[in-house]
């Protein structure tokens, strides 16, 4: 009688322990996942920041390349273009 009572107690104890273990396992794995997401989030934030900085640098570079003084120099020196003389520009209006 006493032995069977002990056995059932042990079984209850085992079930409780198993439940506690599963609970702990789920809790810790969720926590670990959370931390993992934290790492990923930070990586993405850093990447976003880097990309934004890259965009700004490219914007600045583009604007520097489009510097009108530079463009004029290229057009004049490399392409040998010249401004039209005053008598070379004629605006002709079409008849309506």
């Amino acid at each position, binding site marked *: 009688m006493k032995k069977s009572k002990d056995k059932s107690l042990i079984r209850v104890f085992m079930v409780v322990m198993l439940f506690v273990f599963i609970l702990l396992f789920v809790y810790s794995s969720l926590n670990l996942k959370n931390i993992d997401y934290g790492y990923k989030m*930070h990586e993405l934030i850093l990447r976003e920041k880097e990309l934004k900085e890259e965009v700004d640098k490219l914007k*600045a570079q583009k*604007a520097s390349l489009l*510097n009108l003084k530079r463009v004029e120099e290229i057009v004049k020196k490399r392409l040998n273009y010249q401004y039209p003389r005053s008598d070379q520009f*004629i605006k*002709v209006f079409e008849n309506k």
Partner: protein
Amino acid sequence: MIKINKKERNRAFILFIVFSIWVLFIVYKLVKIQVFDYTKYISKVKSQCNRIFSLHPKRGTIYDCNGDVLAISIKTKSAFLSNKDKKESMKIYRLLSKKISLTNGERKNIKKRINKDRKFIWIKRKLEDREYKKLKKIKNDLSSKSTLGFVDEYKRIYPQKTLAAHALGGVGVDEQGLCGIEYSVDSLIRGKGGKVKVLIDARGKIFEIEYLKQPVAGKDIFLSIDSSVQFFVEKELKRTVEKFRAKRGSVIVMNSRDSSILAMASYPFYDPSRIKYTSQRVLKNAAVSFLYDPGSTFKIVLASSALENGVCYPQQVFNCYNGIFHIKNRTIYDVHPYDKLTFEKIIINSSNIGAARIGLRLGKEKYYRTLKSFGFGSKTGINLPAEEYGILNSLKRWSNISVAFLSFGYEIAVTPIQMVRAFNVIASGGYLIKPNILKGVDRIVLPEVRKVKILSSSTRHIMTSIMIEVVNTGTGKQAKIEGIDIAGKTGTAKKLKNGRYEDCYVSSFGGFFPAQDPRITMFIVIDEPKGKYYGGEVAAPLFKRITKRLLIYLNIFPELDKRNEIRI
């Protein structure tokens, strides 16, 4: 049943005691750590894995009216020395100094700070990319890596270099606006810093982020300036100032309809990224802060006032006393003597005596009221710092002959921005409109500025026809372009130096076109040109050259019914 003897029982008892002491010790330690020393250990843990960082806001970008970048901030690195050992720091500094460009003053300063045993020493702020790469390589080769460090900082870039420098202004080393639009909209464009708390692991990797204060990025600013217009205005201005070896020059190009500034140039130019090496004289934006006596360009204000008040009318004849007119104990001269001139011819030929006579007929009260309504003696309110008020004496301080001298632009000091606004009153159909350079903030277009009608349509029409004649047959002939009506007025004024008018001049020209339906109002000032000095010879040709380019660039041409061909 197992029998336990006394010896074994004693052993078990001792073991129990030892075990109990061990357990009690652990419990004691746990309670001590968890309860009594809780705050001490929690702060230790926090200091090891919690970090709070300040987040620097990015300064907003400045664009022109076409969306081209005029100023932008990009992230760079700044290098510093953590001076723990003087000898070691000096050794590292010598190694670094060969790899980066530093001025002699900066080198001296760094050495001085190392010798004074300062713990934190800036080596160079806002390094170039290639400089950072070189220094990073040096840091990796160092035995004590912590001596040399880097921090992230923003650096202001002006990709168009000197273009629109005076309008843009510049920023200091901490990205604070120092002058120009950078200064006047600093609170908008600067943004607000934030704070972030992060949790880091044993390897120093961040795994949790909490914003204590969200950073607010600076707003982007859109200016009314057009880079292309600004470019050729600056080019032509430089050519004129250099040709006449003038002290300085300024050109303002304005949209006649809404008074928005398309170009604002002041020569000598400067590079906004080298603002700390630029003298105060060069930094001064002549367009808003150069005070001068306007001379004959001011006659358009006088004529407008006389017509508006009904004291003069077209074709009215005035005696011009053959070039010499005595008033009280002063004498007024004309460059070319005239016997009699009509009201229009006085403006067209720019007769000082004729203007004085109109002024005397008008009377000081009426003239003063007009000057106030044109906004002289007060700031225009343009969004640029260091704007001068100009000098307009109160009516009480006017002498009996003040009105005569004020009629041809003396005894008053104005700025080029005030003059362009005055010319634009006629161009815009009689409205006084506040000049504006700020078009929008963060893609939100700012509302149109308020217009105040100060001249009637008839006055405006008469004034326009007089100003067209100034360019066609009068003193402004060198601004004439075949096929397009330009309304303008020349000005040549002596400069007041040490209380006396000396033989150095300010040449100016103001005008608008196409005269019948104005799109552009422009004002030019050339300070102390050498050789030629008349406004019609110095400023008018510059007006013509800029106008030619504007006509093509903005595709401004009059209606077909008048002409079928324009030669520019």
